[in-house]
């Protein structure tokens, strides 16, 4: 029986379209459908650009040039991809359990705040070894992010508060919290930013090694990328090779079966949201320590929300998240040069729309039948 509500039986046509639930999904199909969705999205984007009088080919060429055109710009693309990978992982692990953490943005800000606190309170001096400062900032950033995940987690586990809204609200609270420190306690001379961090709180960049490797000169890619790649491996292991990951997948697919199998759902809700928050917090730390080098208001062009798209596009697969993040990093980077500046954002949206729509093709087969 077709579950599809209205496979319209158009009388005027000599055939009709029916949707039949797909029994077996061939292994190659998801990748093909995703690729098709992206191509279709780029085509739709091109049509819209042409309609408003732009030159789509030039626009796409410019996007490609300004993100992949040279080693230097590709390095910048990787810099943009770094927080996306971490935030994408944060979303992926929560989504696996069907926890809609859309608070990665707030967790990112709190991670940045926590890392900054190490330098700005200060807990360390200008002369402390970076081998101590950097790990301390990582721990502080992840702990602050985890705290921001713990709150919606406990609210969900204890009071059954919808995590979509609580995480969303916590985003605003996190930004206001940051602003309080930027404008007040840590403000430098009344400006809306903190002082620049001392060098021992900077993540090393490739350019720092230009003296030994000439080719690295001017490259901005920083150690945060390594954190992100390691995190991807760790998350993959957790999800696919650990007991905890199995439990997360089971809860995500069928909480009643998980309960039947003896898995404590409430505890996992809190833990998963904390881990999710910690990853987003690490992204905030890496951005602060690797790129911005100070706490300020404009540290995220919506990484937290883009991370949701990244996770979804990658079908929650940690390694696919790396690839998708690079693509989206490129789009964000291009957004600063390309006019109108909304183009990359629009394309991101269209890609996501096409992708979730194309999921339908994975669940149903389209059959075209002759009308007898």
């Amino acid at each position: 029986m077709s579950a599809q509500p209205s496979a319209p039986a158009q009388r005027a046509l000599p055939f009709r379209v029916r949707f039949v639930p797909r029994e077996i999904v061939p292994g190659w199909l998801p990748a093909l459908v995703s690729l098709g969705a992206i191509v279709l999205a780029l085509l739709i984007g091109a049509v819209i650009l042409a309609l408003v009088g732009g030159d789509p080919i030039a626009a796409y060429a410019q996007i490609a040039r300004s993100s992949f055109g040279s080693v230097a710009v590709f390095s910048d693309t990787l810099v943009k991809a770094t927080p996306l990978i971490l935030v994408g992982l944060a979303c992926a692990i929560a989504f696996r359990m069907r926890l809609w953490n859309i608070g990665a943005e707030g967790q990112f800000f709190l991670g940045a705040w926590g890392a900054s606190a190490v330098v700005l309170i200060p807990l360390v001096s200008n002369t402390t070894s970076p081998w101590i400062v950097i790990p301390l900032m990582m721990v502080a950033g992840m702990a602050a992010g985890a705290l921001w995940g713990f709150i919606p987690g406990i609210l969900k586990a204890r009071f059954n508060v919808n995590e979509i809204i609580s995480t969303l609200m916590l985003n605003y609270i996190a930004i206001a919290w940051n602003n309080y420190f930027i404008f007040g306690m840590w403000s430098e001379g009344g400006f809306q930013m903190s002082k620049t961090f001392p060098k021992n709180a900077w993540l090393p960049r490739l350019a720092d090694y230009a003296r030994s490797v000439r080719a690295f000169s001017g490259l901005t890619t920083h150690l945060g990328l390594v954190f992100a790649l390691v995190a991807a491996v760790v998350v993959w292991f957790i999800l696919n090779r650990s007991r905890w990951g199995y439990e997360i997948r089971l809860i995500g697919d069928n909480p009643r079966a998980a309960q039947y199998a003896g898995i404590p759902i409430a505890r996992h809700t809190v833990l998963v949201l904390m881990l999710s928050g910690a990853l987003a917090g690490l992204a905030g730390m890496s951005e602060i320590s690797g790129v911005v080098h100070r706490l300020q208001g404009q540290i995220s062009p919506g990484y937290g929300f883009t991370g949701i798209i990244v996770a979804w596009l990658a079908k929650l697969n940690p390694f696919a998240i790396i690839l998708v993040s690079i693509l989206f990093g490129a789009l964000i980077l291009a957004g600063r040069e390309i006019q109108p500046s909304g183009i990359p954002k629009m394309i991101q949206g269209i890609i996501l729309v096409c992708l979730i729509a194309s999921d339908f093709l994975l669940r149903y087969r389209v059959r075209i039948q002759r009308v007898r």
Partner: protein
Amino acid sequence: MDPIIILQAGVATGTVLLFATIGEIFAERAGVLNLGVEGMMLMGAMSAFSVANSTGNAWLGVLVGMLVAGLLSQLHAFIVIQLQADQVVSGLALTFVGTGLSLVLGEGLSKAGAGALLPRFSLPGLAAIPFLGPIFFTNQSVMVYLGYLLAPAAWYYIYHTRPGMNLRAIGEYPAAADSMGVNIYRLRYFYVFVGGMLAGLAGATISLAVSPGWFSELTTGGQGWIAVGLVIFAQWNPLRAMFGAYAFGALRRLILDIQGPALLFGASNIFKTHQSLTYFLEMLPYAFTVIILVIGSREAVRNRLGAPAALGVPYVRGERGR
């Protein structure tokens, strides 16, 4: 810091939230969560402003803004009703599409400056009521007055009319409504459209009345998301939404104004001496929404209030379980 000015401004800016919130209430009452309010508002604000500027007719702008946002909402409706995709992700996608598209199409509008605007006026007679008159009926935009009518009308529609009753049923227990011959799919499309139109109206209210002009993403500045939260605060009730929206608007104005006076309740004003403390005031509405959720979840268990039971769940008819 004049309380009357704060409340007057609160009602004006709150009207934007009110429209968007009521729109989302309609969609969610029908069982469809649409997180794309922000995107629809931006599209509404941009197209309304654009049309008003080029034609000189602000009302035409409002109409087009509503239609464009309504049309955008149908993308979400198709994806979640027809294709049964996840409503959270689709709503987010809609926000991105709406934001991006409005930036692309609104390119250059920010330099245009304000042209045709919606009228603002005082209501003779009512404006003379002490205290309430200056707040609600003096020198307000026509949209504010429309808000006074819309919220009770929406409330009446939902609770006291036959279509409103069907609306509540399809969000609560679609199978029951379906078994009695209510067309779930058609109604869900319709109410998502209504939600989109009202989000568009909210956008048009910004760009043509409350803070005229087109300032790219800053035009809405996250108010669409606040509206999503307000729906829960309002417990899906338009009258409670009215209270919440105006209170939110007033609070935003209060945060600006509270930094002025040297004395507050006879004591030295810490918000003047430490202006950054106002950020804690800024947190209040959001923290309050979360607290309402906690209380609400308790209350909901007791009174069966709260979210429509089928919210976010695609309706699939007659699937014979194995």
